[in-house]
């Protein structure tokens, strides 16, 4: 179907009035709130000439920061997926006491100021912290390293996975599991062949959100990261550092590169989501 034809048929079917108005309003707001600042961000680095931009792009410290940001965000989001799936499972299926309280606590990372999160985690995992001290005895140091960044990003990203998977899991008819069992599937086969593939699109969505949040996260990371250039300095921090040095070209060029890579990553996540959603969502396999 062509785009025009699909638009026309959607309008013909749409029971809600004011399609044009809604479309206009949406485009205007997306334009003002999202597109305009982004355009400024894309245009700004080039204002001091391409040579300044190219010079900024040759900054090794920036590449190190970008590498730290993307690898820690990716790692944290990946670790969050099985954790989030397990948590969502327990919340939906488990008849555990205190389930409602746990349900409320899941969203807390959204609400706490990220700086508070950062300071709390840094204290907890610090060399003298409740968790940091015993771990240090085992030879594991979490705080003030890239590992600390992963821990902070896991904390911040977990609710995205849980909240993406939970409604899908809740809507999953129990008959699916019963049918699999009646057909001879062992419990792990039911989980592996029926439940997980059904949850996968939601899990990938949650992963994408957690990952995106992880790339942009600032407040909760800088207290626990140690912020050593080339090792545990994240890209958003480097932007701030450059701004404090009045190096606007440097700051915007980092932001620009961050934007480009983030867009590519999110496009990849969207593509992946469509791949795993084949058959699950009507229209996804077209």
């Amino acid at each position: 179907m062509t785009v025009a034809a699909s638009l026309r048929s959607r309008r013909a079917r749409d029971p809600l009035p004011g399609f044009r108005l809604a479309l206009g309003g949406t485009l205007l707001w997306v334009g003002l709130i999202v597109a305009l600042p982004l355009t400024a961000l894309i245009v700004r680095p080039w204002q001091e000439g391409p040579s300044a931009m190219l010079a900024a792009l040759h900054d090794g410290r920036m590449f190190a920061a970008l590498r730290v940001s993307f690898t820690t965000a990716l790692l944290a989001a990946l670790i969050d997926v099985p954790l989030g799936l397990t948590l969502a499972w327990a919340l939906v299926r488990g008849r555990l006491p205190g389930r409602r309280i746990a349900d409320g606590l899941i969203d807390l990372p959204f609400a706490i100021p990220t700086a508070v999160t950062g300071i709390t985690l840094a204290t907890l995992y610090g060399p003298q912290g409740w968790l940091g001290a015993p771990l240090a005895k085992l030879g594991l140091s979490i705080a003030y390293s890239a590992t600390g960044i992963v821990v902070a990003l896991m904390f911040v990203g977990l609710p995205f996975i849980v909240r993406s998977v939970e409604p899908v899991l809740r809507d999953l008819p129990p008959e699916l599991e019963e049918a699999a069992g009646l057909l001879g599937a062992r419990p792990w086969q039911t989980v592996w062949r029926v439940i997980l593939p059904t949850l996968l699109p939601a899990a990938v969505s949650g992963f994408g959100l957690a990952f995106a949040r992880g790339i942009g996260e600032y407040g909760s990371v800088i207290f626990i990261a140690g912020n050593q250039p080339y090792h545990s300095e994240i890209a958003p921090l480097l932007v701030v550092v450059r701004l404090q040095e009045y190096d606007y070209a440097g700051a915007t060029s980092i932001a620009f590169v961050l934007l480009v890579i983030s867009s590519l990553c999110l496009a990849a996540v969207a593509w992946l989501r469509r791949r795993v959603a084949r058959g699950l969502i009507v229209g996804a396999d077209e």
Partner: protein
Amino acid sequence: MSVRIENLVRTAPGNASKVLLDGVSLDVPDGSFMALVGPSGAGKTTLLRAIAGLDAFQSGSVVIDERDATGLSARDRNIGFVFQNYALFRNMTVARNISFGLDVMSRSQRPPQAEIDRRVQELLDLIHLPDMGGVWPQRLSGGQRQRVALARALATRPRHLLLDEPFGALDPVVRRSVREWLRALHDQLGLTTILVTHDHEEALDVSDRLVVMQDGRIVQDAGPDALEARPATPFVMEFLGETLKFAGQVSGGMFIPADPHVARFSVPGVADGEIIALIRPHEVRITSAVNGAPARKVGLRYGFARLAVDMGDRVVDILSATPWDVGESVELHIDAARLFRNGRMVEERCDGWA
């Protein structure tokens, strides 16, 4: 290949005073097609799930093929089960749905892939969807999904097939064709089938035997003919079709109706006392009578004239093969009625009845 249920009791989880199955015993012989019928909440699905091993129960036993299956899990019973909502796996194509039961077998039991593919094609042909193997279940119509669910249940060649309201979501025309096809399939494969439905016509149409359930108990277990001729309780009679009710007295072997304009008839062998007569609208005969009840034609059904007869305190609708003029005054003859006393059928009457 039989199923036997002995004195099954199940109470609602978390509420032991709410009895879902109240001492149900049932014998389903090899090769029979049995329908569990009854209103919503009668315990039909609960019983079916207990047979399949999906739910636990408090006491009693389920014996499948002369083997006590009470402690067996659902996966060890090799029972084909079709859910009301079909429960097709959305992440798999139709073909993978059908082969699921074979795919999950351990490597030593699992047939080779070519064999599995052949079996899937065989089943796709059987359900008249030969080219649909690569389609996602969401693309199918209700009737097609229903048949895929059936094919999936049959892939591991179970000897028993349990169906929970399988036609509920289908339109009437599809319903009829699917149930005829299902009956043919049952005969062809030599299955033992238990079907849950709340639609008595469907049950009468397709099954050898009907088990009528009410409030967690089996009220009657009989063939369609016997059920119509000798309903155990007024509930069974009413559940199986439109019913007219006439109260009356038996006195000296005669039924004396409480309604005027209803003819007396002889009921030899029935003890004197209060009695209730139940009859189907088409079994009522009418004759012209002076000062009878006024009858008027209100419509047609199955070629019968539908007559509203004004009995004074109420209007009864009967079906008559002969057309009657508007406003004619009639008398009702209900000698074909089944008689009930204290909520049970009066058997003496039956012995002389066709």
